[in-house]
């Protein structure tokens, strides 16, 4: 039995959701309330265990805390795979995020999914999702990380396609799964490259071997790092594989919250943070540009979307771009910090949007209006007084994502922008990175406040709905209140710091950056030093851009001093591009899917009409002919001639020999005498 709680509790956190998945999927129908209490109970237990681990981490306050346990899974002489878990501060914080958001999702879903036709299956899949994510978080080697990685893909497929009767949901789940596959291939190639060079799957041996510089270095290491990063591109929805995330909104809204905050998209960033030491400087440049492009592109798209969940989806893509940008510029703990704060406020934003959509559904249902889209922000407006809890919580989270001081997003975004700025100060040729970063930050503030103004402020656009809008039930508001309050800065800077402008606190104390394992890279201290110099400039700039964004949104959507319509008409071309998501789906369809489908059709024609008809059938005919000939030979040649011939021959010989046996004793005696005589005569010579 495992005695150490630092190993036992993570294992429990890992396997309790799996247990709940098995119970609920197989016996959920027979249990009272379809077994939702099993799922909620197990997930809340894991949350409490994670809280215990977090408290322990807090009490120890040891930045170098690291604990691991592993066992030999496959042992074939030279080829060995050890599976195990690695528990350090990073893992504990991530476990807390996953279990907290997952618990909130479970509780929120109790009300949101009430009466759903596949209620128990939904909760079972949530358990599987949490299990897979915990598997990624706790993995101490690439193989078990990859297995959990794929499980996350499968469970997201199942949950996005929860309402698979809708074509759009079924297609979105397929799209998410297949797009992820593209990235996973890169991930697998990266793993194999590393394994073939290093001969190990576990993280620590890989880091040591890379630091040695003998096993793998230079371009090979860059390619291996980029391959592994490709997995993150798919899972964390980075350009050019970002197309699946907005479509994934077809799943139930709590699932979106879980996926966007803690389980799915966080996996890519977490993996990059965990494996940061393997990335070479050239790989990091590529990573930084991909992150920057994703951040600016998604922000530009989010500006013009009218579906409340689409805005949030693109804001997630944009924020993930920020995180990847931070990894690329070397300040990867800032990326993880943003992952933590983002998980809280983005989950909350999704719950709030879920709450709004939920009450829109009810209002539309009461008004017998089945044509109005309950997710379109143009149909909302003036909900502020009707749903005060949702409004204030969402406002707090919006302030956080926009990067306003006193809120968590300010600290983490500031750290990222400072890192980017210092990177550009030392590499002036990469000036586009901070430019994209600050522009995306301004756009974030703009589109998030656009969402708030359009949904909660102003005059209701459809009066008949507003009178039926009401606050959501307790199961839904309690996660909203909890996560909303977690958007304040104070939770991230305790216990040593109360200054809302500085991010020094338990996080920066406990999650310390490690040096890159690649020889010749900047050390973590140098990076931190540079970022520190850029800190005040970055803070000033980010405050300016955030206030510009908020002011613009206020003028355009609250005061309506500037007409959004005029601007969109003036920049019609850009507006069209943004509204249509830069035509990514259309272009992919035109230049990737369609040629691919045509190729597949051609190959299937070749296969069916040519290969099957002539080659395969020809083989059949040839075999038939051969078997007829060999059958004939077998029957008339071997059976008739050879086998029967033996019988006939022995029959004939037997008949001949039979004549000797006369049955007369005296004959036999004569033979005996003759025989004796022959022997005697023979002996005489």
């Amino acid at each position, binding site marked *: 039995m495992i005695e150490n709680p630092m190993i036992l509790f993570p294992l429990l956190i890992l396997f309790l959701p799996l247990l709940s998945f098995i119970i609920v999927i197989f016996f959920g129908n027979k249990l009272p309330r379809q077994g939702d209490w099993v799922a909620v109970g197990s997930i809340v237990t894991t949350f409490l265990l994670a809280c215990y681990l977090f408290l322990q981490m807090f009490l120890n306050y040891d930045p170098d805390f690291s604990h691991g346990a592993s066992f030999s899974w496959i042992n074939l002489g030279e080829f060995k795979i050890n599976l195990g878990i690695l528990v350090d501060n990073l893992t504990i914080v991530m476990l807390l995020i996953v279990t907290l958001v997952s618990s909130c999702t479970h509780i929120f879903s109790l009300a949101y999914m009430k009466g759903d036709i596949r209620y128990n299956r939904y909760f079972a899949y949530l358990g599987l999702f949490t299990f897979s994510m915990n598997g990624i978080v706790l993995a101490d080697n690439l193989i078990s990380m990859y297995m959990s990685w794929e499980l996350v893909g499968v469970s997201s497929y199942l949950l996005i396609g929860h309402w698979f009767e809708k074509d759009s949901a079924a297609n979105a789940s397929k799209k998410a799964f297949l797009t992820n596959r593209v990235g996973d291939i890169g991930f697998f190639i990266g793993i194999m490259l590393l394994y073939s060079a290093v001969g190990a799957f576990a993280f620590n041996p890989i880091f040591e071997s890379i630091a040695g510089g003998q096993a793998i270095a230079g371009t090979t290491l860059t390619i291996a790092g980029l391959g592994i990063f490709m997995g993150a591109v798919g899972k964390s929805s980075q350009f050019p594989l970002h197309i699946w995330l907005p479509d994934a909104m077809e799943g139930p809204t709590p699932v979106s919250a879980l996926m966007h905050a803690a389980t799915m998209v966080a996996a890519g960033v977490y993996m990059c943070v965990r494996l940061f030491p393997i990335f070479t400087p050239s790989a990091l440049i590529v990573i930084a540009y991909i992150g920057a492009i994703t951040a600016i592109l998604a922000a530009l798209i989010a500006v013009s979307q009218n579906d409340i969940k689409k805005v949030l989806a693109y804001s997630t893509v944009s924020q993930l771009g920020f995180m990847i940008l931070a990894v690329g510029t070397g300040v990867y703990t800032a990326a993880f910090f943003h992952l933590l704060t983002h998980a809280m406020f983005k989950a909350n934003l999704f719950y709030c949007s879920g709450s709004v959509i939920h009450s829109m559904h009810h209002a539309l249902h009461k008004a017998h209006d089945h044509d109005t889209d309950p997710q379109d922000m143009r149909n909302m407006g003036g909900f502020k007084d009707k749903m005060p809890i949702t409004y204030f919580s969402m406002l707090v989270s919006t302030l956080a994502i926009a990067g306003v001081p006193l809120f968590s997003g300010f600290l983490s975004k500031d750290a990222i922008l400072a890192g980017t700025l210092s990177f550009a100060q030392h590499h002036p040729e990469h000036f586009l990175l901070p430019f994209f970063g600050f522009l995306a930050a301004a756009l974030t503030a703009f589109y998030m406040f656009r969402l708030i103004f359009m949904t909660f402020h102003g005059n209701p656009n459809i009066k008949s709905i507003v009178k039926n809008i009401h606050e959501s039930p307790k199961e839904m508001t309690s996660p909203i209140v909890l996560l909303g309050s977690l958007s304040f800065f104070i939770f991230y800077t305790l216990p040593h710091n109360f200054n809302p402008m500085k991010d020094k606190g338990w996080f920066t104390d406990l999650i310390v950056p490690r040096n890159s394992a690649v020889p010749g890279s900047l050390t973590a201290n140098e990076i931190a030093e540079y970022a520190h110099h850029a800190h005040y400039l970055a803070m000033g700039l980010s405050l300016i851009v955030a206030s510009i964004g908020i002011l613009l949104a206020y003028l355009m959507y609250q005061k309506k001093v500037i007409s959004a319509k005029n601007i969109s008409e003036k920049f019609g071309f850009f507006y069209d591009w943004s509204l249509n998501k830069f035509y990514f789906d259309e272009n992919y369809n035109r230049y990737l899917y369609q040629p691919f489908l045509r190729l597949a059709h051609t190959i299937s024609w070749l296969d069916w009409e040519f290969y099957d008809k002539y080659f395969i059938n020809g083989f059949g005919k040839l075999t038939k002919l051969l078997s007829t000939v060999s059958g004939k030979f077998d029957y008339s040649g071997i059976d008739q001639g050879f086998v029967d011939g033996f019988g006939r021959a022995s029959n004939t010989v037997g008949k001949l020999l039979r004549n000797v046996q006369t049955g007369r004793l*005296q004959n036999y005696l004569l033979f005996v005498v003759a025989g004796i005589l022959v022997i005697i005569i023979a002996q005489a010579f």
Partner: protein
Amino acid sequence: MNSLDSYLFISSMLFCLGLFGVITRRNAIAVLMGVELILNAANINFVAFSKFNGMNLDGHIFALLVIVLAAAEAAVALAIIINIYNNMNTVNIDDVSELKR
């Protein structure tokens, strides 16, 4: 008549006559008589070797034993022949070829 050869010659003649009788005779009783001749040829040999090779009376005792054995054998053989006659009404051994079937 004092050499071993003459005795052995007589006994081998007797043996050949007996063998001839056993092989050629059809009558079962005649065959039996041939067997007796062969046994007696052996007896002569025993006695002759005993006399000329200085073996005291060993050969004579063997000869007496053989005579007793021949008497027992004759009794058994005659009993078989009587049974054959009772069952098949013949003592011609060519007709008694049950083994062949």
